[in-house]
């Protein structure tokens, strides 16, 4: 039995010819004596043979010859985009004072005159006051109306059951209507409408992680809110994968543990310098 365990430990290396001579001898001797391990080895070899038949479409010579050109074009394009999105102060000044055509100054002067005219006109002849309807907030605020931390906590508390219902839902063992999708959609829609106002209130740098969590939740809730009415299990599965791969529930738990939701959270950790160990 111990020999079988050792043999299975070597199986992967044996399949790919990575055994040293000592292990190879042991492995081959054991397979000659043990029918179970031999059967296992045969089945795995057969599996790999089947996987060898996986087709990999060959894009053709033209594709490979043009690869470098396409890559360098993309590189140039991205570099240009980066330069235009963050020009240096010198370039900005140069663009305003040196490089701009004459008509830009004329247009700017005209704009200033119009604004001045409107301002003077409104001061001397104030517009007739008409009653304006009170703007309705996009969504009613929850508890803790003014404190964004309390609102964030309420937001997360309400999002969590929706995510848990989705993540724990197993279509193989449960009835497709056990998920109560209409209810989850309704809650999600409500939460999505609140997200914008909440994020803009979480302005403090110490609330950055909380703000990011709300953004992540908003994305997933938006997907749930937009699910088809008829329990589209494939779409549910995709959203479920999104929740799991994004580690949303873990992030919620971390926020709860770190005290961010009680307003006693720590300051955000300084950004680490990049190293090869971290994700590239």
């Amino acid at each position, binding site marked *: 039995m111990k020999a079988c365990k050792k043999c299975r430990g070597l199986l992967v290396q044996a399949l790919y010819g990575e055994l040293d001579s000592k292990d190879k001898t042991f492995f081959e001797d054991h397979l000659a004596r043990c029918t179970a391990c031999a059967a296992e080895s045969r089945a795995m070899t057969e599996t790999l043979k089947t996987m060898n038949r996986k087709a990999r479409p060959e894009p053709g010579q033209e594709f490979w010859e043009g690869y470098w050109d396409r890559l360098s074009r993309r590189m140039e394009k991205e570099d240009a985009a980066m330069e235009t999105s963050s020009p240096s102060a010198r370039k900005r000044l140069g663009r305003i004072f040196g490089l701009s055509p004459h008509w830009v100054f004329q247009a700017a002067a005209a704009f200033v005159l119009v604004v001045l005219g409107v301002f003077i006109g409104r001061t001397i002849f104030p517009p007739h006051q008409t009653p304006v309807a009170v703007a309705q907030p996009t969504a009613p605020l929850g508890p803790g109306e003014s404190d964004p931390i309390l609102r964030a906590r309420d937001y997360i508390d309400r999002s969590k059951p929706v995510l848990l219902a989705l993540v724990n839902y197993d279509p193989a063992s449960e009835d497709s209507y056990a998920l109560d999708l209409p209810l989850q959609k309704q809650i999600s829609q409500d939460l999505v409408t609140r997200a914008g106002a909440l994020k803009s209130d979480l302005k403090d740098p110490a609330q950055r992680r909380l703000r990011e969590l709300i953004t992540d939740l908003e994305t997933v809730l938006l997907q749930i809110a937009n699910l088809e009415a008829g329990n589209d299990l494939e*779409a549910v599965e995709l959203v479920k994968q999104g929740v799991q791969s*994004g580690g949303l529930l873990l992030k919620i738990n971390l926020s709860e543990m770190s005290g961010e939701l009680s307003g006693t959270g720590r300051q955000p950790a300084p950004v680490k310098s990049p190293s*090869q160990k971290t994700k*590239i």
Partner: protein
Amino acid sequence: MTEEKELIDRLSRGDMAAFRELVETYKKKMYYFALDMVGNPADAEDVSQEVFLKAFRSFKTFKRDAKLSSWLYRIAYNASIDHLRRRSLAPQAVEDTVLDALSGGFSESPSSQNPAQAAENSLLQARIEKALEKVSSQERSVFLLRHYNELMLNEIAETMQISIGSVKSYLFRCIRKLQKELDIPRTSAPREVNNESL
């Protein structure tokens, strides 16, 4: 190895000719790995280009004692995972991928195949794709790196920054799952292998 060292030296100086050499050497490997990971040719080209752009722009993070190929595969692995994550947030893209996979991407059915063979081959390809979808992303990545990209187990460990024991464990479990999905029989049912036993 000396050639690689020389290439690394030139890359660290930002030499564009060296970068082109790197691209020409590894473009097929990166493309096919990305194709195996993301499943459609257009996305695979996109991901493989991203690998080279990231490599060029962040070459200062490359450690001299590491292997260039392992480093590139690591970037490719991360870029593919990021791509799949973004795609999972856009359900229509997945449908496109399935359609691409079913139509075989770039390739048409070879004219030498008769319709029955072509149909059989399409079914086999669909089964293989489906089987690969059933394994976790780590298991799949380890398998793709070993089986189709021919990296040794220790190179995979370096690429994915995990132990060799974990590589063996992921690979074993992956082949087992594939075997099950492909309905390949075995006469007995041995116990699961875990990290400790490997």
